[in-house]
């Protein structure tokens, strides 16, 4: 898909168009809006990132990862279990504090940002967690509305009962995108595995992100939902110009939806290639290992 | 803040025998209000300390209290005496089991004696003084313990301690509560000085006089309200006395010395 960069679309305004109302009914296909001038061509740059859980003596999980992701790219991060994929993704918005190295996102040096700046940056980045991380005692709708925390403020975004009507409706639209409107009132701990994953996705959509970081976003989804979600991501990339960084254990998804594949093995990047002419069997070697853990 | 003209704030602390007042002060308050024409706010206070502080920070106008408390009040706030309340049979005693080994005060040497409540006139100071008067030095010839009366009596029945200090009224109650056990008294103190009504120094002379007269003239009526319940008839017979002198309380001050507390004696010489 790195060839398809020409067809990438950008919203006219620096913000992202309202997802509520008719406008959110995206029509697939090229859109003529342009990338705003202030959007850097490199949206994510990771430089020799080292991460340890625990102090100096403990083993490094990421052992010096470097990575550059261009604006509008879709990067599939692959690797066997425990290779460090989730850890890498969580380092990007500094949910984990890297031990060494640097990360820049959307042109900002993540490591040097202070509280407020970091919050502002994070609010522009959608994150779908491998374990979904929903607030289980709240309703699905409230969980989705949480996505608006970055722009709406703590009180208006903390519970659906307190949220202004626009947010509630926007959240319903996000739920509609993952076909979950009828469960909006359900408590988040009464969902099936796939439903809960979709709520997590809807919550990330609610952020109107510029970068979408998704950790195995379709692992619990049935095949057709999985494809719909991946298509949705692709459409957002085309229409809103977002950048997508996702992990997956489906090589097929990685090849079909990624412009590029980055493979990790035991905390090191062992492969970084455009997907253009890759076949599934070209990637099998990533998983051959005795030291997988 | 000076007290409002219409309202007097009236506290009662730990007056032995006035426990009933602490729970059912309604009739007493109404009577006092009717007799004086003031609105009466009434506070039964469990803690001497709190009452003293309330009086010295002028949140309270009058306090009805016991002799030991009076000495403390006097030493810590410049309080004025309104009237005294003389009650019959108000004395401290040392109670032991009638069938026990203790027959005389001398037998108490080296034994445990319990006092009901720290600093209380008739449960702590009085009994300790009674023993001292008969030659037993506090905390030297016997081991004093502060244990609440309920527990102390049970412990004495068990034999864990040998004597309990209390006043005459208490012993009557206890005899009724333990009909199967016989108690006897091995030491008896002098009659204790009167309970006393004092006023904060911020109280106006007019109000002071009004209250004083009311208590002297209508002491009996007020008392009648206190002892409305059948059980409390035995507290009848008290008198309100107009002439109270501070030196009457030197006996109490010496009691404090007896138990090793000297700080309240500073006013003796005044």
């Amino acid at each position: 898909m790195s060839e398809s960069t020409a067809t990438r679309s950008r919203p006219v305004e620096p913000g992202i168009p309202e997802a509520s109302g008719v406008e959110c009914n995206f029509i697939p296909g090229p859109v003529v809006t342009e990338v705003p001038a202030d959007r850097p061509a490199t949206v994510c740059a990771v430089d020799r990132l080292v991460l340890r859980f625990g102090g100096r003596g403990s083993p490094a999980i990421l052992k010096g990862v470097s990575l550059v992701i261009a604006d509008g790219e879709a990067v599939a991060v692959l690797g066997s279990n425990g290779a460090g994929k989730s850890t890498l993704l969580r380092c990007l918005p500094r949910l984990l504090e890297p031990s060494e190295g640097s990360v820049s996102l959307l042109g900002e040096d993540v490591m040097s940002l202070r509280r407020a700046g970091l919050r502002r940056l994070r609010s522009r980045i959608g994150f779908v967690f491998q374990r979904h991380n929903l607030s289980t005692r709240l309703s699905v709708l409230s969980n989705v509305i949480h996505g608006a925390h970055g722009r709406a403020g703590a009180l208006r975004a903390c519970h659906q009962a307190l949220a202004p009507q626009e947010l509630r409706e926007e959240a319903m639209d996000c739920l509609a995108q993952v076909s979950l409107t009828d469960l909006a009132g359900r408590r988040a701990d009464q969902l099936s595995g796939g439903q809960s994953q979709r709520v997590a996705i809807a919550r990330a959509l609610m952020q109107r992100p510029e970068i979408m970081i998704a950790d195995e976003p379709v692992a619990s989804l049935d095949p057709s939902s999985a494809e719909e979600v991946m298509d949705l991501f692709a459409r957002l990339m085309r229409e809103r110009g977002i950048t997508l960084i996702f992990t997956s254990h489906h090589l097929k998804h990685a090849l079909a939806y990624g412009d590029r594949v980055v493979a990790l093995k035991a905390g090191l990047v062992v492969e970084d290639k455009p997907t253009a002419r890759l076949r599934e069997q070209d990637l099998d070697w990533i998983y051959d290992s005795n030291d997988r853990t | 803040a000076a007290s409002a003209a219409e309202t007097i704030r009236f506290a009662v602390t730990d007056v032995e025998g006035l426990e009933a007042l602490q729970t059912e002060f309604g009739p007493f308050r109404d009577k006092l209000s009717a007799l004086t024409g003031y609105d009466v706010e009434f506070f039964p206070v469990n803690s001497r300390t709190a009452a003293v502080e309330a009086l010295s920070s002028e949140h309270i106008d009058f306090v009805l209290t016991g002799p030991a408390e009076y000495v403390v009040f006097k030493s810590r706030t410049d309080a004025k005496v309104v009237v005294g309340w003389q009650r019959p049979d108000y004395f401290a005693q040392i109670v032991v089991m009638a069938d026990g080994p203790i027959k005389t005060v001398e037998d108490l040497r080296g034994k445990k004696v319990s006092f009901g409540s720290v600093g209380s006139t008739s449960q702590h100071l009085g009994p300790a003084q009674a023993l001292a008067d008969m030659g037993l030095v506090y905390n030297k010839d016997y081991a004093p313990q502060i244990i609440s009366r309920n527990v102390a009596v049970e412990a004495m029945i068990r034999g864990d301690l040998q004597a309990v200090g209390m006043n005459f009224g208490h012993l009557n109650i206890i005899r009724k509560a333990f009909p199967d056990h016989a108690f006897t008294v091995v030491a008896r103190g002098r009659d204790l000085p009167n309970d006393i009504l004092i006023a904060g120094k911020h109280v106006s002379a007019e109000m002071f006089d009004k209250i004083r007269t009311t208590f002297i003239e209508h002491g009996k009526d007020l008392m009648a309200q206190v002892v409305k319940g059948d059980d409390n008839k035995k507290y009848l017979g008290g008198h309100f006395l107009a002439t109270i002198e501070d030196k009457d309380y030197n006996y109490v001050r010496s009691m404090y010395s007896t138990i090793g507390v000297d700080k309240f004696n500073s006013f003796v010489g005044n």
Partner: protein
Amino acid sequence: MTATTGPDHGVPHRMGKITPLAFALTVGAAAFVLVSFNHVGLSWEKILGGGPGLARLVSQMFPPDLSRLTPVLVSLLETFQMAVVGTVLGIAFSLPLAVMASAKHAPHPLLRIGFRGLIAFFRTVPDLIWALVFVIAVGLGPAAGTLAIMIDTIGFCARFFAEAMEEADDGPQEALTAMGAGRTGILFSAVYPQVIPSFIATGLFALEKATRSSVVLGLVGAGGIGIELKVAMDFFSYDLACMIIISIFILVLMVEQASGWLRARVL
């Protein structure tokens, strides 16, 4: 993924790693407990053998004396009202204090230590001193009693609230952080929803505790059921005391019931 065999593929140690310090501390603590047990001198023979005395005590308590039922209930209601006000105020102050005192949510570790200390201070300074303070400040009466209850409640609730917040699952908090939510946002969206059952339990316990231990109200001339009970005991009216205790017990059970009912709705 072939199964390796034999007992020699490194079964982890039974005890994990123990630092010498931790070991020394553990042994020291255990020794202290043993010494203390010895010091206290509990023995089974002692405990059994109070039978007849206890039977007498119980017989003195039953049947409960119902003659003063009405004034006791009125007094209980008044006490409960003061307890409600004091507890509500205390909980209101506890919420922000707990945030400041929680290891995960305090803006700064030093602040956390300070607020932990403050809360411990509220607990440690005894009721009588608080009673004095409030008597000096607002005079004798219910207002001072309520404030004393408030302080008690803060010392208790703020600590347990803080601890509940520390125990809350990290997942949702991480999600909220990733969305750019601020401290308040994380609290309201990820922490409070998780700890609300624990808050209810703690809060209603505080209410019940305030009602039960209303002796502090007596200290400041606010009356209360605690005084009634004290007077009953002073007069050795064990049957009246029994009746008062039973009334309090029923109230306690009702508060427990309310707590259970509220928690069932959110658990």
